[in-house]
């Protein structure tokens, strides 16, 4: 298999958007094509978690292709719940690496803010095991269960978790495309209302609209896609044995690092799936960026802040940049491309190797992607 590169990256402003989902995806897709200096890709891969129910559109890859003026370009949709963006990147990687195509446009997006919050929550919670859902389990509920088990095993505190949200809001305040662009104090986080004990409102990511896109190609470009790996776990939380982390992330990281031929020590910037603030700490340890049980201390010492040794979520993460489901896995990659090529104005960190980690469902289908400045 030959090398695979990312030639262009773009994304929309994330937040409450009036534009239609196809319009948002066209905005991101055209931006990525322009950044890559490409008029027409050989293929298109689309990601959206649930356009059928969020916006009432089916056959969505063809829909986006036609909307982009690429109706004659073969297209498909990739879906792994909340990590669908990373799954789409994987499909594009495979198409290039297998020699099937030379250039592939990957576009992910979601639009949800036009629906009432309980409806959005219900639709997202459909990615949970049906029996657990029948007991009223939602994503925040299961995240609360995981967080408490993880805290009791690692000794991490609410303050440790809350510092993640404070850091990511500080980063979001420097990102003009972020959903939230204001800083928050740790008191605000700790005093926000309880959502799923011990998780409070400011530990949870918002409901966002937005889209992100990259152009993947076989010819050399400024960013090399060094590794991409997937990991999986039971749909049901009750079938799992280990509550010190997510098996799906660990497997994905192992696969990605094996493909890249280097280890976590070379990573200098990371975008992690902080749908709930403690997931950033769990993910740091699962990917090997932090030794087991040490992630909270790294955050508390500022090592993961913008000026730290290993900046994590310089974009603001899911917490502050926002979480437009099908776009998120790609938005992480877009941020890393900008960081590795010196285009992250206002939040630029010095880095040549970046890691993105995306969680699908309650960590049932996770991805780790490694990017390297070429």
């Amino acid at each position, binding site marked *: 298999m030959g090398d695979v590169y990312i030639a262009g990256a773009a994304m929309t402003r994330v937040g409450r958007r009036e534009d239609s989902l196809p319009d948002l995806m066209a905005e991101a897709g055209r931006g990525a094509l322009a950044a890559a200096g490409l008029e027409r890709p050989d293929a298109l891969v689309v990601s959206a978690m649930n356009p059928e129910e969020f916006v009432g559109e089916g056959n969505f890859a063809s829909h986006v292709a036609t909307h982009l003026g690429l109706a004659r370009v073969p297209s498909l949709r990739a879906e792994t719940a909340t990590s669908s963006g990373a799954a789409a990147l994987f499909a594009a990687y495979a198409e290039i690496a297998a020699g099937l195509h030379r250039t592939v446009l990957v576009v992910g997006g979601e639009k949800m803010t036009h629906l009432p919050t309980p409806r959005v929550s*219900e639709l997202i919670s459909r990615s949970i095991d049906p029996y657990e*859902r029948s*007991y*009223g389990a939602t994503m925040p509920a299961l995240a609360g269960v995981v967080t408490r088990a993880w805290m009791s095993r690692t000794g991490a505190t609410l303050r440790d978790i809350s510092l993640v949200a404070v850091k990511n809001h500080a980063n979001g305040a420097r990102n003009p495309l972020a959903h939230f662009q204001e800083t928050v104090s740790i008191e605000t986080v700790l005093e926000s209302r309880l959502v799923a*004990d011990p998780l409070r409102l400011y530990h949870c990511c918002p409901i966002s609209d937005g889209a992100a896109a990259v152009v993947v190609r076989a010819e050399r470009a400024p960013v090399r896609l060094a590794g991409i790996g997937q990991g999986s776990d039971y749909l*049901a939380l009750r*079938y799992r044995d280990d509550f010190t982390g997510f098996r799906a992330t660990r497997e994905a990281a192992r696969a990605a690092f094996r493909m890249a031929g280097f280890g976590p020590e070379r990573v200098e910037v990371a975008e992690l799936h902080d749908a709930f603030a403690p997931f950033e700490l769990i993910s740091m340890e699962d990917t090997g960026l932090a030794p087991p049980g040490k992630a909270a201390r790294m955050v508390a010492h500022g090592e993961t802040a913008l000026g730290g040794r290993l900046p994590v979520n310089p974009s603001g993460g899911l917490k502050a940049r926002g979480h437009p489901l099908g776009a998120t896995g790609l938005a992480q990659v877009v941020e890393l491309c900008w960081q590795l090529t010196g285009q992250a104005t206002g939040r630029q960190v010095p880095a040549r190797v970046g890691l993105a980690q995306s969680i699908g469902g309650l960590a049932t289908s996770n991805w780790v992607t490694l990017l390297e400045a070429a």
Partner: protein
Amino acid sequence: MTARRPPEVEGRAADRPAPAGGQARTGDESGSIGGTAPERGTGPGPDGAIPASRCSRCRRICAPPTRYCPDDGTPMAPATVPARGEVISFTTLYSPPTGFASPLHLALVELPGGAKFFCHGAGTKGLRPGSRVTIEAVDDIYYFSTLSLGERAALFWRRRAETATGRVSAFAKSAAKRIFRRTS
């Protein structure tokens, strides 16, 4: 008793078949197929044991029962598990889905034999990972309780004793009445 009033049933969902656990109102279970649908007939056994299934190949136990082993796909055989265990973790949900009353207490409990089980509870005061709980079903919905087996036995015998005392005093009263009637 830790049982609480089951949450109101949403009108729209009430005509759907009730899945295991009795109170699913959020998802579209009626559209599920094969092994993804919650198994039926997962109510409590006659002795209060929790219905489960066991893999004949790897011995894994799942509660409630499921058709195929999640590890190796082997068809599972029916089994039961004692209705008690150790709390792995728990949460209280303050914005539960439609059809559930707030706050909603949820716990993940490890049963004897290793199966982990989702259940409701009346509260989480004093609860922590590692707490021992008993589990009982009320209207096919499982609830955890921090009452120990010993405390349960004590409550049971106290009630028996109270009832017995009541019977004795009633017997004495009626006997006294009879004697009084005869003598008058």
